[in-house]
């Protein structure tokens, strides 16, 4: 396959950025999208040009590092991560636009790399169960109904990639935040901190400059792990319930 890539190039957060065009040849349909970028980078390197910076690590769809907007869609045309997208999803001769996540709360670091530290800070604000090492009761002391365990798992599958934010016209982080709130909220282990968790995490999310949610659903469509839109409505209920119980100034 022969392709034309138009890639966002930006040297650093303060530098102006812009799209630059590159032709690539000899692309196999079996290549992953990132392997296709590898071939471009190999050529740029040997020619002495700066290779395109992008985040990636596991290349298995689980670490959440890869983060490309491909032809205007977060992670591209298939419902998967950028690293698990294969070139057979494109046609010979295509022109493909590659851009970083675009969101006020995710500033560009370089080219296609953004800073998602805001996600870590949302988890730090309450996305955990306070149980120091050694303080745990016997694992079978509290049976957990299978339905609750399964629901917790489905929300816990979030890989923290940020596609939901990138896809949202408002740059909202509601899907990411609700995934953690509902993971821990579904389990008896998460119950004691249920109220403070949702209030603190939502407050942190707002403080980070993510946009408000208007339930357009773009997030759930882009999410490679299938976190459902109902996760957001469930969190809204949790938040209302908690704010009645724990009034805050």
């Amino acid at each position, binding site marked *: 396959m022969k392709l034309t890539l138009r890639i966002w190039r930006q040297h650093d957060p303060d530098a102006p950025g812009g799209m630059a065009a590159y032709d690539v040849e000899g692309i*196999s349909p*079996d*290549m992953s999208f990132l*392997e296709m970028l*590898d071939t471009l980078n*190999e050529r*740029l*390197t*040997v020619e002495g*040009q*700066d*290779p395109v*910076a992008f985040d990636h*690590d*596991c*290349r298995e769809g*689980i*670490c*959440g*590092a890869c983060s490309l907007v491909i032809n205007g869609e977060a992670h591209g045309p298939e419902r*998967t991560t950028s690293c*698990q997208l294969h070139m*057979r999803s494109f046609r010979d001769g295509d022109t493909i636009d590659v851009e970083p996540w675009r969101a006020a709360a995710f500033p560009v670091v*370089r080219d296609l*790399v953004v800073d*998602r*530290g805001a*996600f*870590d800070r949302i*988890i*730090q*604000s309450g*996305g*955990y*169960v306070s*149980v*120091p*090492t050694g303080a*745990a*009761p*016997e*694992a*079978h002391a*509290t*049976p*957990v*109904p*299978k339905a609750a*365990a*399964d629901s*917790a*798992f489905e929300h*816990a*599958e979030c890989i*923290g990639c940020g596609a939901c934010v990138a896809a949202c016209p408002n740059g909202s982080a509601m899907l990411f935040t609700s995934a953690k709130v509902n*993971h*821990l909220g579904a*389990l008896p*282990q*998460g119950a004691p901190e249920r109220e403070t968790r949702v209030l603190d995490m939502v407050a942190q999310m707002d403080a980070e400059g993510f946009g408000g949610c208007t339930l357009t659903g773009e997030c759930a469509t882009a999410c490679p792990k299938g976190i459902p839109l109902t996760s957001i409505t469930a969190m809204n209920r949790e938040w209302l319930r908690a704010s009645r119980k724990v009034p805050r100034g």
Partner: protein
Amino acid sequence: MSNPTAYADYTTGEPLADTKAPEGPVEDRWDTRRFTAKLVNPANRRRHTVIVVGTGLAGGSAGATLAEQGYHVVQFCYQDSPRRAHSIAAQGGINAAKNYRNDGDSIHRLFYDTVKGGDFRSRESNVHRLAQISVEIIDQCVAQGVPFAREYGGLLDTRSFGGVQVSRTFYARGQTGQQLLLGAYQALSRQIAAGNVEMHARTEMLDLIVVDGRARGIVARDLVSGEITTHFADAVVLASGGYGNVFYLSTNAMNSNATAIWRAHRRGAHFANPCFTQIHPTCIPRTGDHQSKLTLMSESLRNDGRIWVPRAAGDTRPAAEIPEDERDYYLERIYPSFGNLVPRDIASRAAKNVCDEGRGVGPGGQGVYLDFADAIARLGRKAVEERYGNLFEMYERITAENPYEVPMRIYPAVHYTMGGLWVDYDLQTTIPGLFAIGEANFSDHGANRLGASALMQGLADGYFVLPATVNDYLARNPGHDTPGPEHPAVAAAVAETRERLHRLVGVDGDRSADSFHREIGELMWEYCGMSRNAEGLRKALDRIPQIREEFWRRIKVPGTEGEFNQSLERANRIVDYLELAELMCLDALHRAESCGGHFREESQTPDGEAARRDEEFGYAAAWEFTGTGRAPVLHREDLVFAYVHPTQRSYA
């Protein structure tokens, strides 16, 4: 440059002994050690700083726990977030001797299975402790909200895994590593929020600072700004994972690397059993030269899939057209009692053998079938989908073939490294104050790791063992002054790091870091991979210094040191692979026996199985660094088996 024959002429130094494991019955040793360990007064803990490099299962759990105990923790990872460490990719599960199934499991059985599975090249004290702690890990993780698979009664589900006869593997669908890591990450996040952990993401350790014989800090590079920084502490913990990426193609994350442990090795930490690597039998075969990594298909697939190749060499018919009597279900044929469930090393080697005979399938003949047709006929498609649906989907996404209709193609790939920094029972390296945990150390798996045991070890080390032993070290070594940047040892480490990076950028050659990585990887796969012999290893030992010399002449790193520069990151990691590879080959050459994942063609039984030579090689080989390309010194730690008596493994 260095002289390759000189490198292979290693010398033998003083034997090494683990002086920390107490005497007495093996089941009491951990209790005894904890009792004899000195404690740091809780009020004084805040004044102690501990550096933790890595945020995988080992580092994440260690950092969180040390901070909970009151220490000031300074932690590092190269990813943009601690949540993305390579542990996230583990699929299958985590072992624990809970015996919830009442199927005859016990701490002693897990201990026994692990020592035997490791082909009698691990230390009994360590393995027994691991088995003891396994039960506490499950409790801790459940309390954190890790959503393990459960049964309808609400209790935890388990499955049997990796050739053991009890059902002791706890799992969270095919994403156990992800869920365990998020548990550790959340515990760590809580400590970051509390101000007890100072987290440096996108920061790579490039050297260890040793002052007056003790580990006192690290030199790191901020991967965003390129700035070289120094960090000081009273103890340094390396939890930087394994070095499988030396082979270029492996199931490891792309950026997993050996730099932290190799730099520590250069500063005096002995490196043990570097040649012990695990090749996993069920990975998706490579499709071409563009291949950047290999994807594991969980070992659990072997519970229901049948492995076969055509009987005749060069048979290129599609699988469906090959009649039953022209197929060779070779594992079932050679190992009638274990069949498709033989341990990893045996399954991998058997696949290589049939491919070497020209009977491999798929592009390049580097693959064997893993066929679910019988399972689907027996259990129904739905049941197979319930068990393996997500794996089948992943396979189809990568290969564009539907495994419900055509058999999967699989081939072995480098997966895990049992070798690593030598540590004693306290997980302390040969440099006082430097500890190594998780895959970065060599401690518990001997020459072969059993499935679902790495997650167990990482969390045992991080949540339970290290916090106790670091405590003892700090109690015995209180009140050191922090070395300043002007200290000669600090200044030298910083200067060497700067010089190395500057030199990498300055060569301005014509070959990318990746091209060198591929070259060294292919060499290692060929000569130090699934099967090894003296001639091949000598060839590799001749070749590596030449590649190293070429590297320093032809490497091309665009950009500068003082900016975000992924090419520089890669090139710098390859500098270390080019030295580590040499030590791996030497270790493989010197160990003229077969054991576990290390198969020396010269040492096999008449029917082609690995033949151990306990009399000569019943030791762990700990290597001391003497200079790039210079012969290292071998220190032997004799292994004593008082509880599990060495036998030849037999799976026939």
